[in-house]
Each structure stands twice: as structure tokens, then as C-alpha cells.
């Protein structure tokens, strides 16, 4: 291969090559880090939630007349919801998982806040919650109907709880969570009667998102939040008429706030989605700009070397030799660029990690990025190179 003459020609006319190499270096650094962030966000959004997110929605009922009977209200509404065609299960919850609203507290193995503390995102539910959320129990049993008590907000005091496996493992690393007693602060003991395999809680940006505790209680308030799960694919049909059906049951209250869990989750992940979309756009634009830059400079170089190329053709170089010259030249420039770019990419990532606590770069991105830029460079230079190959040898004999 004629690498050496190409290299020495490059070194003699450095500026253009250095510019392209620099451009490729910065491009690599940006593209690798952007792709890394995009992948990380998509992974975050796509994490298994443990729930049947696609078929769940919430609806609120609120009484404003002062006097009303909570128990009758909930009993009547739940009966209607559970008997609606297409509905699989319905429950009453204080908040909806993935929605960004919720409560958490510290849980202990010992009374009086002794020993290690583990945070749990707690929800108040009834016996249909497990089926409504679509979570599965890996051990123990679900709440029984008779275990669900009615209590007022300031006096929530239950005996049994369901917890997620992640919560159980944190509080009971030895695996003896089922049947054990836990304490929320100085409160009364709670017995773990069942373990939920996996379930996400309220705040998608919380590190302990999968540490969930379900409490069997109806909290008596004039604001009731129903969570409903439909048969697969029937969510929108049920969701469309639920407000009207509940209102018809009793017009002396307001029924509002029908929102699918999908919608709530999408809102919670809004920032991550925006980041993924914007950075993907940045990646594509940057690649386009860099490709255009390579085409521009290669075209210029073909134009200014017309006579030289003609001479080479005249003394026996084939068209393919000319094309190869430009391909090899571009490969050399790109290689210089990606070497510098890899260093830049790692440095930039270190800065991102240190300043913004972003996750560290997965090093597989570097060879992938290099490969992509090699291919990009070759494709971009192909057009000008073929134009160079079509220069007639006779041009060598002309003066200009």
C-alpha cells in the first residue's frame, strides 16, 4: 500500500486534514457521550415496572356537601366499577404508582426506631390491589377482605403489610422477611404476610423506587381515588365512560381526574424522554454536519489537485488507484481524529460524571463510535474520490 506517500503529502498540506481530524474528534466525543446518555435514559424508561401499566387508570370522586358516608360511597362505587364490562379489578389507593405523588416512611426491624432503617414507599389499598396493579406475589398471601379496615387519616393503624422483594431484602438480608414483624417509626408492629416479586412506587427518579409497602386500609376522606385495571386492550373503552357511570350513580358529588397510568408514567419520565429525543437529534445533526465537512474539504482537495491527479492518471494510475488514494487519505485523517476523539470522549465523560453525577461511560461505545466514524468518513469521501477518478489524463498536458 502507498500509505507512506499519502501520509507525507498529508503532512505537507496539514491544515485541511487537521481541521477534519479535529472535527471528527469532537464529533466522536459528543456522539459517544450523547449515545451513552440516550441509552441510559431509554433503559430507565423501559425498566420493568412489575405492573400492568397499559391497562390501568385512575378516577377520583369527591364529595363537597359536607355530610356523606364514606363506606357507602366506596362500597357503591367499587361495586359499580368491578361489575363494569371490561373491568378486571378495582381498588382504592391514596396515590398511583409512577405518578410522582406518594408518601414514604422509614421502617425498622425493632420498635422505637432501633436498628437499620429502610425507606418504604407506602400505599393504602384493599384486597383487590394485587390484581388491580397486576403485580405477582412471590411468597405468602394477599390481604383478605376482612383485613381491610376503615380508618381516619390521623389514625391509620394496620396489622399486616405486603412488601416488595427489594424492600424485604434490604430490611431482612437473610431472607426471613415473610412472617416477620416490622415497625414504622414508633408505631405498632406490622406483620409481613406476603412478598411482591417486583413493583415500582411513586417517584421514578428515586433510587429506592422498588421499595414498596402496601397497607390494607380505607382512609375515610371525601376525596377517593379509584384505581381500575381492565381486560387487555379495553382500557380506553372503559376509561371513556367511567366518569359518566359513576356520576349517574350519585350526582351529589364530582367525578374527575380520569387518567391512565401510561399517561402518568409518561409525565414522570418527561425529562428523560426529552433528553433522549433531543440528544438523538443532536447525534444525527452532528453526523450530517461532519459528513458535509468531509465532502466539502475533499471536493476542495480534488479541485486543487486536478493537475496532479491527471498526471498520475497519465503515467499509469488506474481510476481505482485514484479512488483508493482518497479513501486511504480519509482513513488516515479519520484515524487521527478518532484517536484524539477517544481521549476527548473519556475526558468529557469524566467531567460529566464528576459534575453531574452521570453514569460512567460503557467502554464498548468507543470502538463502536470509531467504527461508525470510519464508515462515515469513507462514505463521505467516496463522491469526491469518484469525481477525482473521472479526471481525464489529458488534463496533465494543459497549463491550467
Amino acid at each position, binding site marked *: 500500500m502507498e500509505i507512506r506517500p499519502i501520509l507525507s503529502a498529508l503532512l505537507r498540506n496539514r491544515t485541511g486534514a487537521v481541521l477534519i481530524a479535529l472535527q471528527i474528534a469532537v464529533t466522536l466525543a459528543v456522539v459517544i457521550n450523547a449515545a451513552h446518555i440516550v441509552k441510559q435514559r431509554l433503559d430507565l424508561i423501559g425498566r420493568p415496572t412489575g405492573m400492568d401499566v397499559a391497562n390501568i387508570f385512575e378516577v377520583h370522586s369527591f364529595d363537597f356537601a359536607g355530610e356523606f358516608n364514606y363506606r357507602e360511597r366506596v362500597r357503591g362505587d367499587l361495586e359499580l366499577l368491578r361489575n363494569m364490562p371490561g373491568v378486571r379489578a378495582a381498588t382504592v389507593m391514596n396515590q398511583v404508582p409512577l405518578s410522582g405523588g406518594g408518601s414514604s416512611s422509614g421502617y425498622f426491624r425493632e420498635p422505637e426506631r432501633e436498628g437499620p432503617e429502610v425507606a418504604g414507599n407506602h400505599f393504602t389499598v384493599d384486597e383487590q390491589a394485587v390484581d388491580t396493579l397486576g403485580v405477582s406475589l412471590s411468597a405468602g398471601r394477599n390481604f383478605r377482605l376482612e383485613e381491610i379496615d376503615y380508618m381516619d387519616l390521623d389514625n391509620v393503624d394496620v396489622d399486616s403489610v405486603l412488601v416488595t422483594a427489594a424492600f424485604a431484602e434490604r430490611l431482612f438480608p437473610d431472607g426471613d422477611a415473610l412472617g416477620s414483624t416490622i415497625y414504622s417509626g414508633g408505631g405498632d408492629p406490622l406483620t409481613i404476610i406476603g412478598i411482591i416479586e417486583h413493583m415500582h412506587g411513586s417517584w421514578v427518579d428515586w433510587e429506592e423506587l422498588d421499595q414498596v409497602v402496601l397497607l390494607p386500609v380505607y382512609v375515610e376522606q371525601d376525596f377517593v381515588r379509584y384505581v381500575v385495571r381492565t381486560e387487555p386492550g379495553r382500557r380506553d373503552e372503559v376509561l371513556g365512560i367511567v366518569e359518566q357511570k359513576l356520576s349517574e350513580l350519585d350526582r351529589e358529588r364530582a367525578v374527575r381526574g380520569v387518567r391512565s397510568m401510561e399517561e402518568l408514567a409518561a409525565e414522570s419520565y418527561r425529562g428523560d424522554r426529552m433528553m433522549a429525543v*433531543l440528544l438523538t437529534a443532536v447525534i444525527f445533526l452532528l453526523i450530517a454536519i461532519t459528513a458535509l465537512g468531509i465532502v466539502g474539504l475533499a471536493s476542495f482537495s480534488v479541485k486543487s489537485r486536478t493537475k496532479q491527479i491527471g498526471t498520475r492518471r497519465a503515467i499509469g494510475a488506474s481510476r481505482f488507484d485514484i479512488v483508493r488514494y482518497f479513501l486511504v487519505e480519509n482513513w488516515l485523517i479519520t484515524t487521527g481524529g478518532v484517536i484524539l476523539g477517544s481521549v476527548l470522549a473519556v475526558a468529557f465523560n469524566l467531567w460529566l460524571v464528576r459534575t453531574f453525577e452521570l453514569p460512567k461511560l460503557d467502554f464498548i461505545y468507543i470502538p463502536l463510535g470509531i467504527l461508525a466514524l470510519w464508515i462515515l468518513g469513507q462514505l463521505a469521501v467516496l463522491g469526491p474520490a469518484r469525481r477525482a477518478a473521472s479526471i481525464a489524463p489529458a488534463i496533465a498536458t494543459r497549463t491550467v
Partner: protein
Amino acid sequence: MFRYYLRLALLSLKRNPILSTLMVAAIGIGIGVCMTALTVYYLMSADPIPAKSSQLFAVQLDSWDPNQPVSEARPEQAPWQLTYRDAMALRESDIATHETAMYYSARIVVSENEAVPPFLAWVRLADADFFSMFGVPFLYGGPWSSEVDETARPVVVLSKRTNEQVFGGANSVGSDLQLDDQIYRVVGVLEEWNPIPKIYDVNNGPFNDTEDIFLPFSLAELASDRRSEGNTSCWKDEDITSYTGFLNSECVWIQYWAELDSPAQVREYQAFLDNYVREQQRLGRFERPLNNRLTSARDWLDVREVVRDDNRVLVSLAFMFLAVCVLNTVGLLLAKFAGKAPQISLRRALGASRGTTFAQYLVEIGLVGIAGGLLGLGLAFLGLAGVRSFEGEYSKLAHLDPVLVGAAILIALLSSLAAGLYPTWRACRIPPAAHLKTQ
């Protein structure tokens, strides 16, 4: 002379349409990406009350758990909010020019108009001073009197949109409005008011809309059925079995702001806070080291980290993007000027100095920069429309304003000049004789 250069520049740009287009496109796309990222950042970190942001102070008292700071990540910090009892105690002081305790809640609006079904409205309970402190504009009426802050009365101030919803936009001052099962008297209706960020309460969505309804904070005591809908944090094991128990608990949920007009007043208020806490320490509360903080509204957004890291990352990536665009333009300009060697030589031979040649080409590059800036603004407009399509807070954080438009043109000019400096310098160093000979 400048006009002559301008004409030459236009001619030169026209002579090489492909290269000129590529340059304008490179700068334009760079500016478009940069301005999209910068706009969101700029609006997120904007000072929503520039006239008063150095006089308004967020008040913090460290009433947290003696065994651990409120945040392990930021152990120097005190809780962002106050307990109800401390807020009530601070309200007794008359050191501050104005002050307000406040929190976020909800009520159900029941309109007499059958056509308006009952709806859930977001409510801010605050003291009368809130409106003057944060420069809240009134369309009709005004705040309630400060006596209401002492003795609760059922009065209400409506946001413009709530007034439109319930009263069709008419002057409703003096009208009655039913919230839950109680009748309130409307005393004021606000103008459109939407500070971004919502500086007075960044705990509950710093980019959320302002509340629909404003009620006197003095009603909090009676509002056992409609409690705070905002962030509430508790650390102590207290046997809370009633609303009164909650009000007297160590849970923090009240935002507190004081207007302090001079450094002396700030010092006096700080001393007052410290004395209050020392007094409480003698009563067995506030077991942590003294850590009472007054933070001006100007610094509050930084302290509360309202701008998300993601937006900083976007801005840094966007500027690297612009760097690639500038490098690209350098290459294109080199190519362009290389082709101009004979022309430059001719002009130089005819008496143009290096300086004038340099100036002439900088005008041309400046022109490319301005064109790129305009294209970039167009692209930023599209980019921001894309950002707005994510809705939520982004629909408020993605609008160009005159400052941003100016910034876009300036950045475009600077980056095109940065791109042009080296190629122009090189072009001007061409020895005229060499090129004149070959012709």
C-alpha cells in the same frame, strides 16, 4: 468603505453559492441547536422577580432530627420548610417589612352556575403581604386586610382563569363563592400572573402553574378536612391522632418568606431567628446546632437546584456541537479563500494593504454569521416547538424572547468571526507576485 465591502462580500458569496450555503447552514444549525438548549436553561434559571429578588428572603430553621441532618447529601442545609408552630411564632415578629407564611392545598369550587360543574382548584394559603411581596398584579379589588391574617375570615382572591371559569370574567369582587361546603367572599381577582420559576414555592413543582385560588393563611387552623397538598416531611415519632396534633408536630410543610430592605434589617431578623431558636432549645426543641438561614430570592434558585443537571449537560453538548460547526466553517472558508488567491493578489498588487484586505473579508464572514444567526433562529424556533411538544413545564420553558434573539445573533457573529480569523489571516499573507506570474 464599509458599504463597498458589503457589496464585494455579497458578490463573493453569490459567486460561490454552494460553499456559501454550506457555511451559512453549518453556522445556522450550530446556532439552532445551541439556542434550543440555552433557551430552556435560561428560562429555568430566570429571576422571576428581578425588582425584589435581593429583598425577599426565604426563611429556614433547623428543627430537624438531632441524630441526622435533613439531607445526607447536603448536611449543611436546614429543612426547606417550617413547622406550623414555628411559622406562627415568626408571624408575631414585626421586624420584617413584609412577611408571609404559606402552603399549597386544594378546595372544591361549587359554582351557583349549573353550567359549571364542581371542580378541584389548587389553593395557596398565604398572608396578605404575599401579594405585595411578590408583586402580584390585581385586575379587580385587592388583597384582604391584614386583620384577616389575625382573625380568620372566609375571603378569597381568585386567579384570572378561575374568575373566568366561575364568573365569566366579570368583576366578581363582593360576590360569594362556595368552596367545599363554605361560602367565601371574593375580595380580589388577579391579572394573569405566572412567575417562572415559581419561586415562592419550588417544593411543589418549580414550574407548575400558579394556584387557582388564594386564601388567608389564618384559615389553616380550621382546615382539618383540606390539608396541605404539598410536600410534608416529618422525622419525629409523635403520636399524631388529630389535626391539632399535626399542627403542633415537628413536621415541616410551611414556606416562609420575609422582605428585608437593608443589611441592618437582615442582621436584626437573623438575630431574632437565632434568639427564637435558642428560646425553643431551652424548651427542649431544636436539638441540632444553630442553623437558621436567610436566603435571598436571587440565591434561592441556585440553593434549591431548580435548574436540572440535564439542562446543563444539554447546554455543554450544544456548545461542543457549535464547536464542530465552527471547525467545519473554518475548513470551508479555507477552501473558499484558496480559490481566491489570484483575486486577492490582484487587489494587493493594485495597492490594497493587508489590513484593508483583512477587513474586507471579515465583513464577508460577518455577513455569513448574520445569515447563519437568522437561519439558526429559525431552526431554534423549530427546535423549541419540538421541546414544547413534551408539554408540562416545557411548554413554558421554550419561548424565545428579545434577549435570546440578540444572544443568538451575537453568538452567530462571534462564532463566524472565530471561524474566519485564521483563513482570512492566511489569505492576506499570500505573496501577490507568485499568483500574478502564473496568470
